[in-house]
């Protein structure tokens, strides 16, 4: 019996509970930087189930991991836009799409792709997101207008700094992996 997919599913259900969803969505930064990553993590946990059920599908469509990486990135970029967050709060269909797309179209492909990727692609992904997060941080912090109908400007600025600090963490990681070649230690 595989345990991790069950935990993933439980996490997904927990996040879907209305009080939990309402709480996390009531603050902009916990909406984007807590709920959404947790949804992806639930997908990471559930991925094993799909890999066992549909091995040919993954080996055929995600042979070198790059297609999965692209799918993950597209879903991530989509959900980084202020407009999509707003819509998730106002349109139920978009909200449902969020709860499906992040675990199954971002979390699952990421788990399947990561071990298949060469270190070039892994670093490319981190660099891409570092740049994206810096840009988004800049956008959210210095945007003169309120970007979301549902969130105040102060929340928007907070989220912006959340992006910058995440980008900072990734920069530290990139510097570390530039200087420390793990393969030399093994």
């Amino acid at each position, binding site marked *: 019996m595989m345990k991790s997919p069950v935990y993933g599913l439980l996490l997904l259900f927990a996040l879907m509970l209305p009080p939990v969803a309402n709480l996390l969505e009531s603050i902009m930064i916990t909406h984007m930087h807590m709920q959404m990553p947790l949804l992806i993590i639930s997908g990471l946990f559930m991925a094993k189930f799909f890999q066992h059920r549909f091995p040919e599908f993954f080996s055929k469509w995600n042979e070198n991991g790059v297609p999965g990486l692209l799918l993950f990135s597209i879903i991530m970029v989509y959900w980084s836009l202020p407009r999509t967050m707003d819509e998730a709060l106002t349109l139920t269909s978009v909200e449902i799409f969020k709860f499906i797309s992040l675990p199954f179209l971002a979390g699952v492909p990421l788990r399947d792709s990561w071990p298949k990727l060469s270190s070039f692609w892994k670093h490319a992904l981190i660099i891409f997101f570092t740049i994206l997060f810096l840009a988004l941080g800049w956008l959210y912090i210095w945007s003169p207008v309120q970007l979301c109908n549902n969130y105040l400007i102060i929340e928007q*600025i907070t989220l912006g*700094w959340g992006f910058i600090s*995440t980008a900072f*963490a990734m920069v530290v*990681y990139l510097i570390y992996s530039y200087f420390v070649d793990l393969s*030399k230690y093994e």
Partner: protein
Amino acid sequence: METVIKQSGKTQVFKDKANKVMGISLEDGKLTKSYLSVAFLAILLGGILGLVQGLNRAGMLELPAWLNYYQVLTAHGLLLVVVLSAFFTIGYFYAGLSHTLGGLLPKVRKMAWIGFWMKIFGFVLAVIPILMNEASVMYTFYPPMAASPIFYIGLVFIVLGVWMCAFGAFINVASWRKRNPGKHVPILSFFATGVFVLLFFGSLPVAIEVFTIIPWAFGWVETINVMVARTLFWAFGHTLVNIWYLTAVSAWYVIVPKVIGGRRWNDLLTRIVVIALVIMNITGGFHHQIIDPGISEPVKYMHVFMSLAIGFPSLMTAYAMFAVFERTARRKGGKGLVGWYKKLPWGDVRFLAPFIAMAAFIPAGAGGIAQTTNQLNQVVHNTMWVVGHFHLTLGMSVVMTFFGLIYWLIPYVSKRVLTPQINKLGVIQTIIWTIGMIIMSGAMHWVGLLGSPRRTSYSTYFDNATALSWDPYLFFLAIGGTLLMIGVLMQVYAVFYLMFFAPKGNTEFPIAEVEEDEAPTPRWTERWGLWVVCMIVLVGMAYVIPLVDFMVNAPPGSPPFKTW
């Protein structure tokens, strides 16, 4: 493992074994000796000032006009929480790096020396304004209290000096890993890595704080954001406290089992404790700000969890330690449910001091958990209770572990041996320190609950009845403080005797082995890059919301004040 290191021009081959037999190289030994000398001079001076404070608070000593209580308090805090702990930690871990990694690299040794002099220079700069009563801002130097700018410039040099030592340690560990592919960093160096990672990242916020204070102290900018400064300070202050704690913990896991002739606790779990303490540490800073205005209730609520989370690895440690003691004692024939304790070497100061230190952490940790909850914090905040708390945690758990270490560490670095007389002195010192600290910290806790404020020189508040009722406890505080001063003198004597006068000989660096049947430790424990990222992400989670709030919704800001 073959490790070849160029020693200042001439090539010397250090084999790990040779290092163990011949002991530390003279140059590495000198480095640690210098660091430890400064640490114990700091405790001597700091102890004297502590006694002055204790006697003053008991109403037994009126300070002369040229010496202000807050001046003394600033120096006491700075000497003991910054100088003593930083110099001890660095001296001890550099000896550990030298021993477990086959000698320090010459470059690293040089960095540690530069760091040494930068810290001393910085400290001298900071002390001058304190002596001139221009910097009686206590070691927390919270704005809006402003000291002379020289004080803060001194702090900058101390931080830079610490960074030198941190990067030196990273370089040495990285070089060892390159020379020993596939091997785990030896456990004591693993602890050292964790400690120096925390020292570096923990002191980033205070560096930012000090750089915003300096222009304000010079008068180049008019106001400062007090909440931001306090928050940056505690991100550092709290981490610093936990760094010494982690240093003491390293000795509990690695050294003490060897001293009692046993083996150490599971390697993987030990490394997990280090990683957990590194990742979760900085965010605990907020528990020093539970009463601060301007932080919303939900954010404070989140921080209760972040702060309690650190308790978890501590509980693991408590379990591990007693498991090791029991296992070792039973192997030596100890019997019964609790009767095995008789088999432990109680007459050996190298065990007794760290053991009592550990035991003290049980009430100390319990008090800490109590304080970190919102309602209980309202009762004890800024009272003598808090002073009692950190004399128990720092003055007892941490400092007494340090005391216990010197009885082999100093002989090891100075190529001498511990004599039975000094061991006996150490046992007596340990008992005196224990009694003194129980009396002093007990009195502080109690009088704090009765409302006596911390950081306040003696006052009867116009003979107010409540204030007068504190007097008997403050009297006990003074008695405890006097005992502690005797303990300080004995300790400092032991340190310098062992460093310069004890008989020559070889002393072992006691590092316990793991149990024979233990499963190999997985490789992922070595992924420091990842742990640092986790730490930064957690720091982001804890700090982004409140800091943005402080800055965007900031009040007008405060001009500098001189309150003394």
